[in-house]
């Protein structure tokens, strides 16, 4: 294993993320993984990695790393703009290069992938950090990350100038497309008016949002006060607590819940929602 990256500045928060855990919900372990799976996968493909390889996920405002070897690197996602690199494009950079991710008002999560992937032991089938249960390492300033020789890399020597993501794969998060909803298991508990409100309102993300859940600001949705037994919850579900402030369960969210779920955000739309910076409005549509 070769040292490839050194963390110089953490910014608001950086973790190692891949596509998360599957098959452990029955023990209470959430799927976790990259908040925006699309951007993680694109960043990995740009450097020739398996799309599911572990990479660095930076929360808005970015941070700073130093390359410890010559390597192909790519940044995708939002919330920050990298120096030395164009977004959605890989470059071959020399050892010693410092990559700084500077704040951008659009998007929340950016992914820095390096060819070979980041070596981090799997726990329950994933290298993703899940701090609440002590999974994954907590990165600090000065930490050195290693390359994972297990991750298969394509030979990219015939691509000296790096690779650019296709136009369709590049995303700009200053404006979100309409996000698609499926009915949730308790959608019949809600009135037609409540459903219309969900679809007609322009929503934003409340600042009280994190990797476990996004709270939606824009309106309050009323729900009949009914006894509910806790049941399994899928990532992307829109739960309505008694106060009426919708909460979207995100990647690290609880595996069970006792609030009625009016709807669930479609998988593709959830990657967009994950990048909704506070202040960026979005709407839902019904599939």
């Amino acid at each position, binding site marked *: 294993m070769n040292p490839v990256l050194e963390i110089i500045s953490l910014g608001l928060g950086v973790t190692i993320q891949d596509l998360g855990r599957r098959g452990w919900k*029955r*023990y*209470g372990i959430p799927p976790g993984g990259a908040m925006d799976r699309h951007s993680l996968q694109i960043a990995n493909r740009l450097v020739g990695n398996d799309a599911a390889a572990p990479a660095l996920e930076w929360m808005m405002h970015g941070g700073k790393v130093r390359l410890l070897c010559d390597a192909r690197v790519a940044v995708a996602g939002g919330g920050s703009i990298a120096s030395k690199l164009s977004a959605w494009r890989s470059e071959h950079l020399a050892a010693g290069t410092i990559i700084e991710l500077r704040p951008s008002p659009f998007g929340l999560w950016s992914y820095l992938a390096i060819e070979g992937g980041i070596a981090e032991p799997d726990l329950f089938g994933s290298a993703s950090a899940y701090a609440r249960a002590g999974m994954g390492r907590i990165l600090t300033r000065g930490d050195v990350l290693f390359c994972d020789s297990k991750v298969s890399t394509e030979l990219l020597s015939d691509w000296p100038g790096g690779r650019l993501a296709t136009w369709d794969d590049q995303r700009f998060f200053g404006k979100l497309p309409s996000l698609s909803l499926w009915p*949730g298991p308790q959608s019949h508990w809600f009135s037609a008016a409540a459903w219309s409100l969900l679809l007609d309102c322009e929503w934003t993300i409340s600042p009280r949002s994190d990797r476990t859940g996004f709270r939606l600001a824009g309106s309050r949705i009323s729900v009949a006060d009914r006894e509910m*037994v806790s049941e399994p919850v899928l990532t992307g579900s829109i739960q309505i607590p008694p106060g009426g402030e919708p909460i979207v369960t995100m990647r690290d969210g609880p595996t069970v819940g006792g609030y009625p779920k009016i709807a669930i955000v479609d998988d593709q739309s959830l990657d967009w929602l994950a990048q909704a910076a506070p202040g960026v409005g979005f709407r839902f549509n019904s599939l």
Partner: protein
Amino acid sequence: MPHSRENFVFASRAHPASFEGVQEAIRFDWQRYGPRAAMIAFQGEQAETWAAALADKLHAAPPHQILDATPAFEKLLVEYDNQSTYERRISTLIEWMEMAEFSRDPTIKSHTIPVCYNGEDLLSAAEQVGMRVDDFISLHLAPTYRVALLGFSPGFPYLSGLDSRLHIPRRAVPRPSIPAGAVGIGGNLTGIYSLPTPGGWNLIGTTSACLFDLSRCPSPDTAESAFLLRAGDSVKFVSL
């Protein structure tokens, strides 16, 4: 209208399946939940056992390209990789469930968990239900509980079977931090905090039993041993 029932696929089934050697009807409804999952709700006295047993069966030998199967009380959430797998596979799963020969998984365990009844809320909880503390403790010790689900945090069991006289609503204001091993009552359930987390249950005792311990699973093959309990297991408390 997405909230009308037309957008759901509901099916009600009744089929004799063998359970612990006894032929009994398995009854369930199911409902699509998003693009690639179904929520299955079992009915009848054995509903919780069916949900846990089916989850075990799907995990032991996944026959249907299932991503995950999560039991909770009488429900079972079955997830596929994506929408197209779901749409190709779900009817086969339902047919398979109708035909399935269920048997109690031999690996389901009975646990004895020692409790020291010293919780911060023990006195107020006993007062709230108008009971002497000794009687309160006896009633909590009496049942054999069933792990209805693990959730809230990894390894945290929701134990069903709590005596109805001990049902106490969750605290209006949750505590910001509760130590691992705290035994609590929340509504009609009792449970054990598996990690230091915030929480709203009434704390009645503590246990030295370790419900979630990453050091117990040094290799991926032994990952399950990080957890003391599993959905469907039974738990008996003994007083220290």
